[in-house]
């Protein structure tokens, strides 16, 4: 069972980087290793995550541990929300 959050990010990736192709994005797949997202694509992914989940991602947080798979993004967003620092936007 995959979460809504992951589904939302997956859909964004399918629409924007895979253009709705039939390829799959498993929850634990590294976007970098699988060449799903390239260096400029990550910048787009970061903006999407910030806007969709109302969080702000600092430069320090732009690391693979937080952003390089659906699982990592979910864990990171949950942690940010738990810390209760709203984006103020």
């Amino acid at each position, binding site marked *: 069972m995959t979460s809504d959050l992951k589904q939302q990010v997956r859909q964004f990736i399918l629409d924007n980087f895979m253009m709705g192709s039939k390829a799959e994005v498993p929850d634990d797949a590294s976007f*970098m*290793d699988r060449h799903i997202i390239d260096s400029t694509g*990550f910048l787009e992914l970061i903006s999407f995550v910030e806007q969709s989940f109302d969080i702000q991602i600092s430069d320090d947080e732009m*690391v693979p541990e937080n952003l390089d798979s659906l699982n990592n993004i979910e864990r990171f967003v949950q942690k940010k929300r738990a810390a209760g620092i709203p984006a103020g936007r």
Partner: protein
Amino acid sequence: MRLLHDFLERTARRVPDKIALVTTGQRFTYAQIESDAARLARALRARGVARGDRVAIFADNGVEVVVGIFATLKAGAVFMPVNSLTKGDKLAYLLNDSRASCLVTTQALREIWEHALAGSESVSACIVSGLPARDGNGRLSSYEAALADDSQELETSSTIDQDLASIIYTSGSTGEPKGVMLTHLNMVSAAQSVNGYLGITGEDVILCALPLAFDYGLYQILMGFLVGATVVLERSFSFPVKILQTAASEGVTVFPGVPTMFSMIMSLGNLAQFDLSRLRMITNTAAALSERHIRELRELFPQATLFSMYGLTECKRVTYLPPPELDVRPTSVGRGMPNEEVWLVDEHGKRLPNGSTGELVIRGSNVMRGYWEKPEQTARRLKPGPYPGEMVLYSGDIFRTDEEGYLYFVARKDDIIKSRGEKVSPKEVENVLYALDGVQDAAVVGVPDEVLGQAIKAYVVLRSGCRHSEKDVLRHCQGRLESFMVPKHVAIVGELPKTDTGKIKKTGLS
């Protein structure tokens, strides 16, 4: 040193325990790389790879690529680095065009190479890093198993410096990638000339986040191994913060980059927290740095010397600007490197005096042997030089010189686009667009882009009744082109401007 693999062999004898390579969290000494390369070379020979055969190396930056390169050379064969972003059909083209006899690759890229191998008759052996044990049969065998076998000694190859060391494919205006043939002499000369002005030493730690399939990345390994430096090899530049963390923890002293990388770094707000005090040299090539970028880089890293350079795969490097000249002529790419002569010619091939504008010509031992099995295209680039039998390289780039002979880039003679420091052939992208059912006309141009230098924009005219969306067009491209070639912008238009003879006119498209 005569042969390219002497770089590794001599350094491994001199400083066997020195760390040669740091990559994906592992550290490898020169002795380890040397021993692994010798074992893989034996495996290549055992699988029928003979002197002069082409061995394609298709993998993300990692130890396999480095070991694969030197193993190929030790076996007397020719390495062919292939960008890991390459898709199946293009990989098949490269394998077939070069008639490669072996492919060294990784399990992670399996979907792509399996597709390519299905259409390749020349490849008789495919050595795969991470191959599951049950799959080792037929053409497939395990890279790790090859390294584990120490049963025999490797016989020395009979290579001489006139033999090919590498074939590196590059985009051409015809849309068909061309294999640049480089001999051992070409590559040894180029590495020595480049290091003649950079002055990298065994004390240096080089950060390489450039793909090794790109000669700028490849030469970081070659020059590092020539002098016995440590190369920190990164997979990609997707996470600049991660790279800066590594740069700080490894005490990086040399950082080669392209403008897109520098612009990503400079946009970070937390640069000050990384201790980059050991960084002593930054190099830039592939695309020109703007004056603003030059100023900002020097402010951010006052401890580092900045080298602006220019080159092309056909001869590796051409020019560099001596750092003190940055203040005098910041937009110049400098003058010819050591053991190389460069000049400008007019359209009749006549040499021009300083202060002129013309095509740049290059003479030196670093100039390629030609394009693999493409005599006509070779003849357009290699033309007779001053002495009998000598060939010089016509770069296809227009430069101007100032009164003192310093060079300034003006334009390319062809329509190649430079995006993210990579060469993109509009024709190659257009060919892919035309392969999409319903596309009647296509025109691809470069448009200015703050981060990429130039971004790729495709204009597409659809046949009547065809309902492709812009996303459909992009999806089609993504399945067939390396990501840096995929258009950033697609415009579906009613018609394209044409010349009197019915050809698409690109001037005015932007």
